[in-house]
């Protein structure tokens, strides 16, 4: 570090600059550059990201994230299957909040067809999305606590997440890879007594969140590690394409649920928490508050959910009811055509976005009218967020990398498609 320690405005003086310090403890240690390799499977790189870190002492000089270990050819796979068959692939984008990906994709396809889905289906989509927003934020906040050395917040987070997974499993049949919803609505209605169970889960969840809050927010170690580290200012964040909690932590009030409400989000009363400094601590606080707002939305949605159909009554898009399939020739034909040929989405293109847990989940979809997507582009919110990590962390300490990596909550599945 001897080169860096010297003031440059005058000629070097060996008696004062590099050699004679007031205290031996203040003197710069001789260091040499070292390249270390973090990942691809490191406990703190959620997912599999390899970070090539160039260090000088503990300062990060250069960092090069190498991604792609989870690349599965999402787009290519989607281009070769029918529209409905794409749905399981979308689960695996953000596997912590799969329903939001399902519904985001379906929303874009419905927009391309020009389809309005039934009101009850819209409510169920809001409920599903908010449940999974909770699981995503819980994982993120819990893991942040864990990697700052606190095991308890992680366990509390996981307890709530387990409860939510149970509710998800009752609703969709799967804990993680839900493949829930179909083009035109939802494939199955809420189970009986489910809403009551969710209410109980949310009551317990609120207690757990309060406890997490109490354990972390004023915890000296946690605050020291997160406050003032991993800072990105609003201008850079926008330039990189930050969205979601990471952008809102910089003080930019942008949430698609408010600016361009889709489904029935405009009927609910909820707030968008906005941070100020754009550091790790603000990102953590924004997520914590968003969980409370999600619970608010869920309660309102469950109070006001209307009865009615859950999928459009159009046999070119939705499978006909089973009695029709077994009883009428039209039913059989529609069923057969839908299963074998898929939904005939008219040619065209659309860019549409929804607010996923980590930000704007955008879909650019092209159809050529042959029953398969011609192009499925996904704008994963985690991609720009990860792209900015070198910008945030270069010149900072190695220890800041871990909280930063936690709070931006990059999900390998969506970043690496």
């Amino acid at each position: 570090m001897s080169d860096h320690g010297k003031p440059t405005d005058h000629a070097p003086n060996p008696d004062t600059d590099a050699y004679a310090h007031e205290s031996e403890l203040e003197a710069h240690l001789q260091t040499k550059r070292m390249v270390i390799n973090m990942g691809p499977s490191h406990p703190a790189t959620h997912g599999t990201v390899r970070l090539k870190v160039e260090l000088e002492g503990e300062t990060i000089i250069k960092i090069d994230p190498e991604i792609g270990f989870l690349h599965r050819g999402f787009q290519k796979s989607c281009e070769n299957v029918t529209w409905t068959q794409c749905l399981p692939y979308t689960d695996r984008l953000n596997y912590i909040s799969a329903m939001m990906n399902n519904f985001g994709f379906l929303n874009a396809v419905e927009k391309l067809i020009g389809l309005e889905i039934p009101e009850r289906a819209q409510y169920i989509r809001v409920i599903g999305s908010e449940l999974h927003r909770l699981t995503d934020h819980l994982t993120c906040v819990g893991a942040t606590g864990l990697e700052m050395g606190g095991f308890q917040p992680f366990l509390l987070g996981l307890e709530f997440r387990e409860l939510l997974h149970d509710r998800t499993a009752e609703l969709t049949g799967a804990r993680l890879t839900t493949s829930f919803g179909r083009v035109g609505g939802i494939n199955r209605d809420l189970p009986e007594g489910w809403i009551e169970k969710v209410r109980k889960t949310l009551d317990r969840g609120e207690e757990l969140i309060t406890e997490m809050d109490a354990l972390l927010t004023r915890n000296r170690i946690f605050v020291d590690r997160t406050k003032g580290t991993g800072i990105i200012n609003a201008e850079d964040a926008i330039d990189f394409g930050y969205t979601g909690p990471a952008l809102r932590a910089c003080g930019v009030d942008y949430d698609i649920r408010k600016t361009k409400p889709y489904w029935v989000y405009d009927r609910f009363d909820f707030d968008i928490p906005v941070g100020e400094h754009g550091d790790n601590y603000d990102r953590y606080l924004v997520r914590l508050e968003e969980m409370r707002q999600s619970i608010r939305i869920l309660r309102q949605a469950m109070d006001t959910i209307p009865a009615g159909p859950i999928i459009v009554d159009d046999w070119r898009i939705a499978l006909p009811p089973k009695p029709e399939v077994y009883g009428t020739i039209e039913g059989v034909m529609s069923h057969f055509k839908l299963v074998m040929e898929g939904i005939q989405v008219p040619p065209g293109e659309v860019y549409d976005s929804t607010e996923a847990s980590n930000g704007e989940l955008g879909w650019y979809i092209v159809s050529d009218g042959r029953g398969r997507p011609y192009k499925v582009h996904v704008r994963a919110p985690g991609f720009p967020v990860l792209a900015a990590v070198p910008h945030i962390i270069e010149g900072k300490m190695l220890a800041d990398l871990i909280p930063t990596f936690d709070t931006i909550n990059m999900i390998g599945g969506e970043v690496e498609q």
Partner: protein
Amino acid sequence: MDRVSAQLPEAVVERYVDRTGGAWAVIHADHLPKVAAFLKNDPELQFKLFGSIDAVDRLHLAESDPRFEVVYFLYSLKRHEHVRLKVRVSENQPVVPTLTPLFKGANWWERLTWDFYGIRFDGHPDLRRILLYEEFQGHPLRKDYALRDRQPLIPERPIKDIFRGPGTSGLS
């Protein structure tokens, strides 16, 4: 968009509105940085939030010349709307000027587009593959790249049922 046409009439090749009401502009490749800079810096527009970049291979579409379309999405926090830009490039010369000096976020998206479509971005500081490995041959999202054309770095164990699941390309 009207302002873009008025300000830089030579840059806009075509404008249209898609079926869902999204406004598109097809931009001449040479003028792309100018148009993007205008969209970003004009005080009325302020399309500052970087959306994404991707490409479409139009090989099998009715209208397939020039072959590639590079699409850009930007968002304005002031006007609360997206802008959708397209640049058409041919197969022989798939080169588009880079937007990295203008938007920091363009860096990785351009690498992604290079990785999967082989579209070069002129002036990009670090145009490497991003998701695939450097040894990979070809660009897999091109329509003439076969679905099961696998290029493993480590030899895969052959599996008898090659219709589904892992295995070789089916040729051996």
